[in-house]
């Protein structure tokens, strides 16, 4: 983060560190709150965030063509980021209460589907394709872990494919061009393909050992777009090379593994569902971000957890991790 501003502390770095400390505190608070509190207020959280998303529709701040933020004076809150955790929490609770025999009954399928579609549609119309995708993925993971049969996913997938042509016609031109550009980056090297091309150049030119701290020429000469948010991994890879990027990847794998292993010790379905789902969602955030900057998937605008600059994203992740810790600390207590 320090590096993104070419070694100027005050601009982004300070704010990032302050936020990190603040949310670390939040993380602790969340950890020490009993799991049963999170369990019982899960529905409330979900509805609350959904309410915030509706508020965004009316009072949200607009930036670069998309209405995503609520102005809370001390922080511009992005409820869609919180929804990533909110939906997982809600669905974990939902399936906690359903026996495995009932999971595949239509009545019990409709409710989660609705709970998933509402926020996704709200976010997709902001428009924010990336976040809505990540919200949906989080939800689907919980549904999958809960034991919903494969055929329903197949149906859903088929439905999605059928609706794709319709959906594409609703896409904004820039979103379409992003997908087309992903398929052929050289199609428009100075326009939409610019980000992918420059990101690949930055990562590739980092080589084995990197160009050194604060020496990433692609970044500080502004060739790299959004270097402190979505493309933070690119910057890191350019400056610290293959070893640096492998280290980051390894840390994220460790975090994921740690969450999964905590989940493994839990005895409640809620705890397990939440931890496994959150771990997987967390991993997917990382994978989508890295895949994006490495040019493996289209640019969708997904931050890298914890490292990317952005309050709401960090807040959501910290709360999510906090709940995992809470599950660990209070694992011997019942949810009641």
């Amino acid at each position, binding site marked *: 983060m320090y590096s993104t501003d070419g070694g100027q502390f005050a601009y982004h770095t300070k704010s990032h560190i302050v936020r990190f400390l603040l949310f670390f505190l939040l993380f602790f608070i969340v950890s020490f709150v009993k799991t049963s509190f999170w369990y019982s207020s899960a529905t409330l959280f979900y509805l609350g965030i959904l309410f915030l998303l509706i508020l965004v529709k009316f009072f949200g701040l607009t930036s670069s063509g998309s209405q995503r933020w609520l102005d809370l004076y001390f922080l511009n809150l992005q409820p869609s980021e919180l929804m990533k955790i909110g939906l997982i929490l809600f669905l974990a609770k939902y399936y906690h209460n359903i026996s495995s025999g009932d999971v595949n009954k239509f009545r019990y399928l409709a409710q989660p589907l609705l709970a998933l579609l509402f926020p996704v549609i709200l976010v997709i119309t902001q428009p924010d394709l990336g976040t809505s995708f990540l919200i949906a993925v989080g939800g689907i993971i919980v549904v999958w872990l809960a034991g919903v049969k494969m055929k329903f996913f197949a149906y859903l997938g088929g439905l999605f494919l059928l609706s794709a042509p319709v959906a594409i016609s609703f896409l904004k031109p820039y979103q379409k061009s992003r997908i087309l550009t992903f398929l052929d980056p050289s199609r428009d090297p100075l326009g939409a393909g610019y980000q992918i091309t*420059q990101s*690949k150049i930055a990562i590739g030119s980092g080589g084995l050992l990197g160009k050194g701290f604060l020496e990433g020429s692609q970044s500080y000469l502004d060739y790299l777009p959004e270097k402190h948010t979505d493309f933070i991994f690119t910057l890191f890879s350019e400056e610290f090379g293959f070893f640096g990027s492998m280290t980051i990847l390894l840390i994220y794998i460790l975090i994921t593994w740690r969450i999964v292993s905590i989940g493994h010790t839990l005895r409640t379905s809620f705890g397990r569902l939440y931890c496994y789902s959150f771990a997987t969602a967390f991993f997917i955030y990382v994978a989508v971000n890295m895949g994006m900057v490495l040019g493996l998937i289209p640019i969708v605008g997904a931050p890298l957890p914890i490292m990317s600059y952005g309050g709401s994203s960090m807040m959501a992740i910290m709360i999510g991790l906090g709940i995992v810790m809470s599950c660990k600390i209070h694992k011997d207590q*019942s949810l009641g």
Partner: protein
Amino acid sequence: MISDSGGGSKIRLIGRRMFILTAAKAVVVFGVVGRLISLQINESKKYKTLSDKNRFREWKFAPPRGVIKDYFGEEIASNEKVFQLHLIPENAENLSALIYRLKNILKMSDKAVFRIQKKIKSQKPWDPVIISDNLTWAEFSRINLFLHELQGVEPIISVARVYREQSSSHVIGYVSKISKRDLQKKNYLANMKAAGMRVGKTGLENKLDSEIIGDVGHKRYEVNAFGKRIKEVSIDQGKSGKSYKTTLDLELQNLSANLLKDKAGAICVMDIYRGDIITMVSSPTFDPNKFVHGINTKDWKELINHRDKPLVNKAISGLYPPGSTIKGLVAISALENDVVNTKMVQQCSGSIELYGEKFHCWKKKGHGFVDMRKAIKESCDVYFYEVARRLGIDRLSETARAYGLGDTMVKGFFEEKTGVVPNTKWKKERIGKSWYLGETLHSGIGQGYWQTTPMQLCLMTARIANGGYDVEPRIVLGEKSKFSIFAEKKKNPKSLEEFFNSDVSNEFDDTTIDLGYKPLFRNQENINFVKEAFFGATNEPGGTSYGSRLNKKEFMYAGKTGTSQVRRITEKQRELEIKNEDLPYEQRDHALFVAFAPYSEPQYSISVVIEHGGSGSKSAAPIAKKVIKKLLERHPLRQQIHDNYIGEDV
């Protein structure tokens, strides 16, 4: 308590499905790691290059051209400080306002502004556009005064070509902006496109261009994504072009140019042993400085439409019938071929009738009985009609070619013309007709189809004066020539002149012939005879150039006049005895003169051609006399420098 419905089986189901997800994650991790390996390890080099290509941008600038000096180290083509004004479009806040402001300050014409705007559009916004490459001091200081409000404009002190003397405009040539044709012709220009770059167009500037041009320098900057210069990464000053010393003598150049003032013509002087071209002057001349920064249309039109074609280097591109200056060569050819001997006597009564045609001598009342020496000395035409008749055109043309006529002789001058040495084959091929004997007679006195350049005549005279060896002209000092190779082998070049003048037969063996000059004669006596006859022509009463002789013994020279007709003289005109001066300029005869000096120890040959100057003895010889005097006065100086050069570059 809230029930955990399902219990153990549900937890197992979750665990099973989590296992599948974990396996999927592993696949994704492999994908990401694989991609990282491919980008950062396998293709790292490619991306590093791309990243540098992003970062660095180069601005090239022109190096100073090498200087061209004369034999004594005087600069003929030099460099001078010039004040230039560059504009970098992307640095300007408001480009059109800036151009308007500059237009006012520099009082530029609308046309010039239009050209600049067109140029700006044609190149990248960070490439500098030259607003002016030769500001006057007043303009330069005015710009500096307003500089704070002219953002995007850079006053630059640079060097540009300057030619101090116009006497050498033709031989030195000039430089100008690079044209598309230059780029096609000169491969080395491909990487030389820099602001203010100039390329040699003619003369030595063209011949030596690839060496004299130097290596372009560049400033390399790191630029950000918006093209802004962040810092200077490296600077390469480039390399100044190689400087050259020539064999020319600037003082003689100036004198010759002065003597030719208000006349059209050329003067060539060369060293008869080394082949060094000491003077090559063509008149009228032009100001080569006008081309350096782009000549304006008015000046260009004036040069192009001028009657006397100032841009043409008449010394190597002007073609003239040699007239009587060829007679020495005709005599040598006839003697070498044993067609006649020097004792042959012919009666000249002013004209002779042959093959039903009347052939006139320039002297209407005739020369009486003449032998060969007198025929050369007094330039009797009738005598040479007879010699030519016996010799035949093909044998004559062979000798003429051997003595340097009919071919380009100065290396690297694209302007040089070959001229014409006529013979039967040539006429058949070029004109498609058979040769007439009458044409042989005209050829015997240097009229008819002959076309020679003043340089060729000078070379012909040199080859006669040095005793009949195939010396070759050179103009750049250090350039390998037959002489320098020979001198290297002989290790004692000073004795070379003695060697040339001595009896050759016992000194020449086959190896030296290979290395040095080839003798052009069968019997050197024939050459010496002609040289002596030339002496008579200049130094004995009755000789055609007697009036232009130098009396001081060490200055005495030997020469041959020539007057070449540019029209056919009808019988009627002959009767009327129309004086040359009364004819319209275009119909007047060319005046020619060739000579070598000093006679006692020949060192130099000279040729003078005055277009439409009348007779050789009246207008060409007196000019040659003045040049020869100066030449011989400067000989010791030249010799001294030559002695210093030995061992370095001969």
